[in-house]
Each structure stands twice: as C-alpha cells, then as structure tokens.
C-alpha cells in the first residue's frame, strides 16, 4: 500500500525494520484508495474540541475541516491561542476530539484503542515541537534512538542495535549534527536541539511529520536553517508535513497555508 505514494526508498526500508505489528484498523479495510495523485493522507472532519476548566467550558475548535495530501507541505497559521496546537495534537492522536473524526489513509483513527494509537504515533507520525522536547538525560544520539527502542522489545532492539545506530547517525548527519552525537541537550543550542528532534521524528520513517512551531523559539537565521531542512525533506523524500506557526514569513514557505481563527478554518 506504500508503493503508490512513490516513496519507494523510504518505505521499503521501513517495512523491513519495522516488521512488527502494523496498525490494525477496526472494521473492513478493503483498499478503495488508488486513483488520483492528490491522495488525501490525513484529514479532520468537523472536529470540535473544548477544554473544561472547572465549571467553565473553553471552546477551542468549533468544527474544523482540514485535509492534507500525501507529499504536501501545509502550514497552519493563526493567532496565539487560536487552537493550532490543539488541532495538531488531535491530528497526531495525542488527544481525542469531542466531535468529528480524524482520518489517516482513509481510515478513522481518533477512536482507535490506545495501543493502536501508540503504534500509529510511533511508526507513522513524526512530531517536532517548539520546545524541542528532547529527554535531558540522554545524548542526542540516544534521543534519536528512543522511538526505535519503544518500537522493539529490549532483546530485538539489542539484536538490531547496529542497524538502528547507523540509521540514527545517518539522520543526524542529514540534519547537520554529526559532530554532536554524544552531547546532552543542555550542551546544544536551540537550533541543534531542533535538528536532533527532527532526526528523532524521522527515525521510524513516518508517513507524515507534524511540526508545532518548529522555529518559534529560534532566531530568524536558525529558523531559516530548520525550514531549509523541512523543505528539503518535503522535496527530496516527498515527506508530508503539517506545520503550525504564527509567523507569516515562515508559513509562506509551505505549499499551502491554512488559516485558523475563531475555532474554524478560514477561507484563505
């Protein structure tokens, strides 16, 4: 089912290394997806989300419809507090919507059992954050390896450790961090941390990268470097990217911009 994305080099290695259980979708999964090039990979349908703060209900999303096609680079813009992060978390199954559905590869994923969603996040989604979210006790290399460790049991990881390590080093080289493998996050600059976080997001060869203000904490030059990496990934490897930002200049580098305001997607 990967071949039609045209992601042969990436997906072929993934299917070998992640030979473990795939997401099992409830219900029949007969593949009815295969015609246009603009294949929808990830989508939100009438998604509503509100937070409860004591007796107060804070409505954040009031019915969001959103689609991204395979290989597309979309940025979501909106003011601070408009619910961009919330939407990204919903897309990444970190949280469940109150109303509406999230679809991935044509199947509903927001109501999957926890273990399937864990697997989805581990194998199909890569995530990067404004505050990098590296584990402070681990070196850059170990941080990159964490998703593989989570995917495999101790024994299987031990058996494949060389392969994983090679791939992690390769990814760190790709993001320009090969000289900082053994450094702890606190010994890295913001840009370097974000590079490590990107490498970590890529180790499981995800179908889609969800980036929450990846440049939000960086100076414009470093932010530009990070954007360069993301654009290259999108262009060279055809990686699907959803990027949240409030910076118009950054957002404009994407294929398409989606504006979020008052809990809905506004007409561009």
């Amino acid at each position: 089912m990967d071949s039609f994305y045209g992601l042969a080099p990436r997906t072929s290695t993934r299917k070998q290394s992640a030979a473990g259980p795939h997401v099992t979708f409830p219900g029949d999964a007969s593949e009815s997806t295969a015609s246009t090039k603009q294949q929808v990979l990830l989508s939100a349908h009438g998604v509503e989300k509100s937070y409860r703060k004591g007796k107060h209900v804070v409505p954040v999303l009031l019915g969001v419809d959103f689609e991204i096609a395979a290989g597309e680079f979309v940025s979501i813009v909106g003011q601070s507090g408009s619910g961009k992060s919330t939407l990204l978390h919903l897309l990444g199954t970190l949280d469940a919507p109150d109303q509406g559905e999230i679809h991935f590869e044509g199947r509903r994923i927001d109501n999957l059992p926890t273990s399937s969603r864990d697997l989805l996040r581990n194998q199909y989604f890569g995530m990067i954050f404004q505050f990098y979210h590296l584990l402070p006790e681990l070196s850059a290399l170990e941080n990159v390896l964490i998703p593989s460790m989570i995917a495999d049991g101790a024994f299987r990881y031990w058996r494949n450790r060389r392969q994983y390590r090679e791939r992690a080093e390769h990814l760190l080289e790709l993001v320009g961090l090969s000289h900082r493998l053994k450094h702890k996050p606190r010994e890295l600059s913001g840009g370097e941390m974000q590079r490590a976080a990107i490498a970590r997001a890529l180790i499981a060869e995800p179908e889609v990268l969800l980036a929450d203000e990846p440049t939000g904490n960086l100076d414009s030059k470093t932010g530009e470097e990070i954007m360069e990496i993301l654009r290259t990934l999108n262009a060279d490897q055809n990686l699907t990217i959803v990027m949240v930002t409030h910076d118009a200049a950054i957002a404009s580098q994407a294929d398409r911009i989606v504006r979020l305001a008052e809990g809905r997607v506004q007409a561009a």
Partner: protein
Amino acid sequence: MYKLLLSWRYLRSRYIALASIISVTLGVATLIVVNSVMAGFTQEMHQRLHGILSDIVLESHNLDGFADPQWHMEQIRKICGDDIAGMTPVIHVPALMRIPFRGDFHTRQINLIGVDKTTYTEVSDFSQYLLHPGNQEKLSFLLREKGYAPGRNDFPPSGWVYRRVQAEYEKELARQQREMADVESSGDLPASNIAPPPDPYAPSIPSDSYGGESNPITSGDVFDPATEQNTGIILGIATCSIRGRDADGEVRDFYLCGPGDDVQVYFPNAGSSPKPVSTSLTVVDLYESKMSEYDATFAFMPIEKLQSLRGMFDPLTDTRYVTSIHMKLKPGADLNGVRDKLRAAFPSDQYPYRIETWRDLQGPLLAAVHMETTILNILLFLIIAVAGFGILATFFMIVVEKTRDIGILKALGAPSQGVMSIFLSYGVSLGAVGSGVGLVLGLLFVIYINKIAHGLELITGREVFDPTVYYFQEIPTSIQPTMVVGVMIGAVLIAVLASVLPALRAARLHPVAALRYE
C-alpha cells in the same frame, strides 16, 4: 529498552533518590544485626538450658517423692520406649549450705540434687560443665588428686594435694590451740580441768549445734581428713565463689572453698513432719554451666546417699523413693507428643506428678526472649515503612519533575505500561541497591561484632558486656538465611510498594497535559 535506559539514567542523575533509600539500608542492616544477635543469644540460651535440663521431666509435687522409680521407668518404657534414649532418677531438695571460711561461716541456700552418677550424665550435658577433665569424661564423687580447672590461673589449689596440706595445717593449728590451753590451765586450773583430747570424729571443720553427722567413705576408726573424704558434693561455681573486680579492674573469681574442702549441708528429711538433717560433705568438683541461676544454686551429690540421709530408702522392703525422673529423647522424637502420651498415662488427677518438657519449664524465659525479638522486628520494620514513605515522596517529586519527559515518551508512542515500568524498575533497583548495601553492612557488622565491641571498649573505656553480669565471653550471633531473605524481600517490597503510586500517576498522565507542562 528505553525503560531500562531511562531508569538507569534517572538513577544516576538523581542522588536525592539514593539518599531516600539510605533509611532502607540502615533499616535492613539493623534488622539483620538485631535478629542475628537475638538468634545467637536465643540459640546459646536454648543450648545451655537444654544441656542442663533433660528433655522431659516427671516430677513429684511432694518433696518426699514417690516410691519405686524402677517401676515408673518400666512403665515409661512401655508407653514410649521407642523415643526414649535414657532415663535417670533424681532427687531435688532445697538445702542450706555452710561454708567454713577463715573461722567463720558463709551460709548459702542451694538446690541439692541427688543424681545417679552413671545415668544422670546420659540424659543431660551435666558432665560437660564440670571443671575436672576426668569428671567430664566419667563422673565420680571421689576427690581427685589434682588437675582441676586446667588453664585457669585464678583457680585455688585443690584436690588431694590441697586437702593434705590443709589437714596438716589444721592439725597443727589444733595442736597449738591445745598447747595454749594447756599452758593457760596448768597455772591456775586444777588438773582435772585439762581440756579433753580432740574428738577423733570431729570433721576438719568445727561441728555445729546439731552435732552433724559426718560421712566418711572409708570406715576407719579415726577420720583423718588428710587421707579420707566425706561423701562428695559438686557445687555450682557461684555457690562458693564471688565474681568481682580487683584493684586493677580485672575480673576475678574469689573462691570461698574449692575441691578438697568440706562443707556442711542441711536439708529436711522425708516424712510427715520434716526435720532438718545435717551432713558434712567434701567438695569434689565445681559445676559451671554459665547460666547464673543454676550456677548459683545447684549442688549435686550421689542419690543413694541422699536417699539414706533423708529416709527415702526402706531397707526392709528395699523400696527407694525419688522426687523426679529425667528423660532424654532420641534425636528427632516429638517432644510434646511424648509429653502428652506420658500425661495421658499418668493423669494428674490420679498421680501427683508434673510432666513437663524443658521448654515448658523454661517457658517464661523463652517467651520473653521471643517477645523481645518480635517487638524489635516490628519496630524496625516500621522504620523501613517510614523509609517507604520517604521513597514515596521522593518518587512523586521525580515523577512531577519528569512530567514533560513522560509526555514526550507518550507522544513518541510509548505505552502507559512502559512509562509505568520505568518508575517501577526505578523503585525496584533502588530498593535492591538499598537493601543490598544494608545486607552487606549488616552481615559485616554481625561478623565483626565482637571486634567492634572490643573497639568500643577501647574508645569508651567501658565494657559493652560486663563479664561480672553476663556469662558471655563473646556476643553470640547466628545468621539465619531465612531471616536474611525475609528481610530483603520485605525491604524490596516496601520500596516497590512505595514506587507503585508514583508510577501509576506517571502512567495516567495525559500526554498533551504532560507536554504542555511547564
């Protein structure tokens, strides 16, 4: 894999958690030390009590005893002969002992025990506690030439060697006194008033107002203390010695009498209106069991002699009386089972007997020690439980501190159980490390406890175990593997229990909430 890696990294980067398990370490170490010392003490005490007492005692309520011990022993053999390794008839009677010392008397209250010299040593370790090696080998109530208490420097001269010198000295003393009297009386008293020659039957000690009977074993016409002895008596070492410190603070035993000296003993005879009987006996050995209660009251003499003195022997019918029968069981025999069988055979509404095991007889003491151990254990486990709350608090802190990491792990697809097991294995390894170090510390302390006590003595100048109070030369210890394993399991369990709640909290954290956590 990430679980092991992370719990290891958390362990290495958070020494506060290590500090929180120091109390576990100390608790485990003290538990092991206290239990080992208590077990050693109990074992030592059991051994001594058991060695001194026989396994089961059939005892008359009456000081006059019961007739025909042979018949009783036959009955006992019929009931449970398979379990019996040996039996001996014994007479217990309270008695008074007077020890002549420098022209004066020391009076002591004693438990006079009439024993059969061949069978009594078979039912208890009695002979092990005698001071003469010959008596340890084969008990005899005859005074030995010399060789008492080899290796003890402060033991007074004893045996026939001593007795002859002493007799010579007293003879000389008597002669001088007589001469003095002669000289005094020759001047102003009439010749008829010359002091009579000394009573040839008088024992070497002044005879008392009861005109005590002496019991020369050799039936010569004249009792010569230089060559003859009275019936032998073996005294508990503390009945005739006083333990104290000399001017230098060294512990010394000071003996009022020893093997070779004669003592006067008084006890009631048997019968409806007991009258005191007095006899002169020769100390032939001393008995040191290191149980102060016994050493300070026990005195042993031949049972036949005691029977004839107390009138517990009827020459017409050849019936003998004893106050108790001591039994030793074969190894592995069921102590209480045999006792209960005997109790059934000699029901207390028909026979005036008490049938008790040595444990029954020492019940209060054993129970007290047991109680002490239990209470100490409870207290010490409470300490570890308190340590558990320390771990609980520390772990909660760490989970709160690691909230964002937990969110990251979940965002990367780590399942809740995985996150939970990070903190659980963290707790297990902390508990294991803490109690492992405690184990090593505790065992080292137990192994070197006497050296440590000695060191403390040197530093503080005070003896930890005052030998004038305790009969222990060393602190007895016994390391019980089951106890050690139990303590370890208990400590690790407490550490694990204390980490369960924080681990559950970590597992329940919502990934988004954790990621947004500042």
